[in-house]
């Protein structure tokens, strides 16, 4: 059966995948299968995660690369907060099937439901799928291979034509002692987006208010 996960879902979710894949010694990832097994194991142990991020968007539509800052938090089973602090203040919170979003530097909340914002809702849902690392789905849509080098890096190449039309490849870099530190998305239209994570806390204390 074909999956109908949209492209933004896969792309954005990959960013988060990096966050919970942590702490595994480099030599243990000699083979791709081992890497993926380790990722899956780590994902199973994941109850919550939070991190700050710096995103650099370098695309032909922008005259200069644009850097944005933000943070995200996730808590099982289906709570996700993703927000930007700079240069704009906007983001969303998803709690199961409902949620809210804010945008345009406004504190006003709007419902975050499929009817009002279908693409963004799909993205958010898929982020959760990736955090929980549904290998069956991810593996069916991307070929995954380790990138030779000093750091632990995985290169994911889309298999489907419609995804290829948007994303050329995604490279995730893992820090030796922590979660993924960098996600680089190379876009089919030229340019790309990189997201560098910091201050990552896995299974740490999580304030439920973040998702309210």
């Amino acid at each position, binding site marked *: *059966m*074909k*999956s*109908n996960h*949209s*492209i*933004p879902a896969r*792309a*954005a979710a990959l*960013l988060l995948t990096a966050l919970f894949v942590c702490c595994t010694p480099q030599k243990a990832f000699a083979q791709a299968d081992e890497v993926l097994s380790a990722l899956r194991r780590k994902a199973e142990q994941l109850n919550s995660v939070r991190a700050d991020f710096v*995103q650099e*968007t370098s*695309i*032909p*539509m*922008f*005259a*200069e690369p*644009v850097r*944005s800052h933000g943070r995200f938090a996730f808590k099982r089973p289906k709570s996700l907060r*993703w927000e*930007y602090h700079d*240069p*704009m203040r*906007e983001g969303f919170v998803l709690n199961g*099937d409902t949620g809210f979003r804010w*945008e*345009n530097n406004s504190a006003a909340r709007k419902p975050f*439901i*499929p*009817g009002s914002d*279908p*693409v*963004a*809702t*799909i*993205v*958010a*849902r898929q*982020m959760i799928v990736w955090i929980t690392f549904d290998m069956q789905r991810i593996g069916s849509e991307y070929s995954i291979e380790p990138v030779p080098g000093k750091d632990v890096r995985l290169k994911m190449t889309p298999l489907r034509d*419609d995804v290829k*039309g*948007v*994303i050329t490849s995604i490279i995730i870099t893992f820090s030796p002692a922590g979660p993924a530190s960098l996600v680089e*998305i190379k*876009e089919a*239209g030229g340019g790309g*987006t990189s997201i560098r994570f910091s201050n990552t806390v896995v299974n740490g204390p999580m304030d439920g208010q973040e998702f309210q």
Partner: protein
Amino acid sequence: MFFFASLYRHSRKWVRQLSALALLFLAACALLSSQLTIREDIRSLIPTSPLGLAEQFAVLREAPLLQGLSIAVGGGEPALSAQLLSEALRSPEIPRVLSGLGATFNPRILPQLCRATPGLLDMTALLSSLDEDSIRASLKRDRDLLLAPQGIVLRDFLAIDPLGICAGVLQRLAPAAGSLGIRTDQGVMLNVDGAHALVLAEPALSMSDSKGAIRVMDRVRSAVQTLPPGTETIVVGGHRHTEENARVIRADVNRILPASMLLLALAFLIFVRTLKGLCIVLLPVAALVTAAAVTGLIFDELSGIVLGFGSVVLGITADYAIHVYFALRNGSDPADSLQRISGPILLGGMTTLAAFLVFFSSSIPCIIQMTVFAVCGVLTALILALGLLPPWLGPGDKQAADSCPLQKMHLKQRPLALLWLVLGFCLVLLLYKVPVNGDIRALSYVSQETARDEKRMGEIFGGLREQGLYAVRGKSLEEALLANDRIWEELGRAAPEKGWEPARLIASLAPLLPASATQTIRFQTWKNFWDAQSDAILPSLDTLATQSGFSTKAFDPFKDWIAGKPTPMTPDLLSSAGLEVALMLARPFGSSWLVYSLVRATEPPPGLMQTLENNGAIYISGRSFRAAMDEAIRSDLLRFGGPSLLAILVMIAFAFRSPSRMGIALLPVACGLASVLAAFRFLDMEMNIFHAMALPLVMALSVDYGIFILSHLEGRLGKESRTGVLLSGITTLSGFGVLLLTRHPALHSIGLTVSLGLSAALVTALVLLPHLADPANESGHA
């Protein structure tokens, strides 16, 4: 009736040859009957007139969500189950399955849709608001979106639409399914609380094809088996009804014909027990086979209900053989006996035929078929009973009182008049406001499970299948779409003044797929605007875009778009955008097209009906359809009852030429009718079209008992004619009575009504009528 006596005298020499000919004819009929094509769908039960009702049903039958199967999937993960079910359903039997945006949704379609938006609405107001402030705000929003997670798929779209011109229009497209009372999530159509997904299946096989419906439903059941344990599945749709009715009618026919034959044989064993008496069993079978063959020759396909009606034909036609048998058995001269019996038999046959002939005025195809079937059966039985049977039976072995001269009989006038006065009063009271049920569902079998599932589906998806809809017709899709656009435009102008918004209450194709002609006009408006304004707006856009950090070529696709020819919105483009579900609103209808709009209200909103009427559109809802059916049934009640009664009165008046004798002959009719109507009134039952159809039958068959008993009382018939009346009553009642064993409402309704009426009529004829004649005269004949 010298004709039959004379016929007997001539034909008795050719008994063997005539019997052989008859057997050959019956064998040919049997062969033809075996080739009959039987249909069990409800279509044959829907009146073909008045035109409005027939048209309503035809339009309703093809309506979106009604034409195919709607399947609700709940429990576990509805979205996943819906996808699994869709995959499992796709097959030669069900080639088209919709569960939402589906796997074909591709974000790259967004720019293509954007290019088509100038045709979707008149953009005059939208474009006129493109001032510098709005451009600046739009660019800010574009930048934020490009940085957000979803921005990665919106790059091309935002490059074409930096000013948010088509974004507003496209917002109408994304929730198109939502306007149908459903929302899409993860590419799947869900109900409001998201607990159930909706899968729409459009089988290749028509729901009027009962064998096809069984195959389709088998496919659905096997697909449902593939779902994870704990998944709730609710299937509703015409194919389920057809399959259910097909199975029930087949089971009914398999049950009632043998039961009817068994009862006939039992009556034979109890009352007759002679070799020649077998004619009582054989003649109705011959009539049945002939009727089936002739009806099959006239109609390409027969309703299964007609076959079920066979038991009735068996019961009625046995009467003629019974009366001839008893008359000839008790007389030494068959010609004389035949002369005496043929009058009452012909009169009885004519009243029965008159009742049936009235049904030709019915607008219900199934009733027409039943009428042809019954008329053929009755005519065959009359011909065989009066033509072939006498020479075959030959002279009887008893000396009976048939040779007694006719006597003038004294009837008890006062009790008879009083009885008629009371009965007449009761009938008027009972006929006043007969409770009528015009619900189409009352005409076909609906199991408890199906009724429960339909109710549940209504609860889950807000009565999606129960609300109103309207349809416009055109010789081509373009013509129908154009009419649909006109209505939408008029509603857009008039409805807000009346306090409602079309977009909130009506799911229409007009905002998604306007007619080409409509789009062409809007393209011109679009072109005119940019021809006049691009020199002012584009430099402003360039300046502000640079200030917002965009590259100089960022919005070149936008400039190309406004300079070029807009893309027309087409069914293919809508479909490739994953909005195939909206295309269900346009359907081919014979050589023309229908474009539907769903009205999410149980009552038509103010002004809607007027607008629809002005534009030749047809509005249908469950309520309006039921009201029209009510009216059709009431009309049929009058159409059946009036002429039927009149024909019977004329024939009885012609035959008996005396009010007292007519009063006697018609008393079983009045009692039969009164008992039926009283039962309906006091048992709180409602009359459907088949109950209505049964009333003339009650009249026509009841009068036979009056005719024979009166003939017996007057000495025209021998003493065993009362046994004949009893036996014919029993066989007729058994024919109708077995219909009470059926589960199909049509057959059950006829069986119930006629059984009730005939029971009362038979008791009246056998018990009451002899007491209304002078006992001295009657004893003289006994």
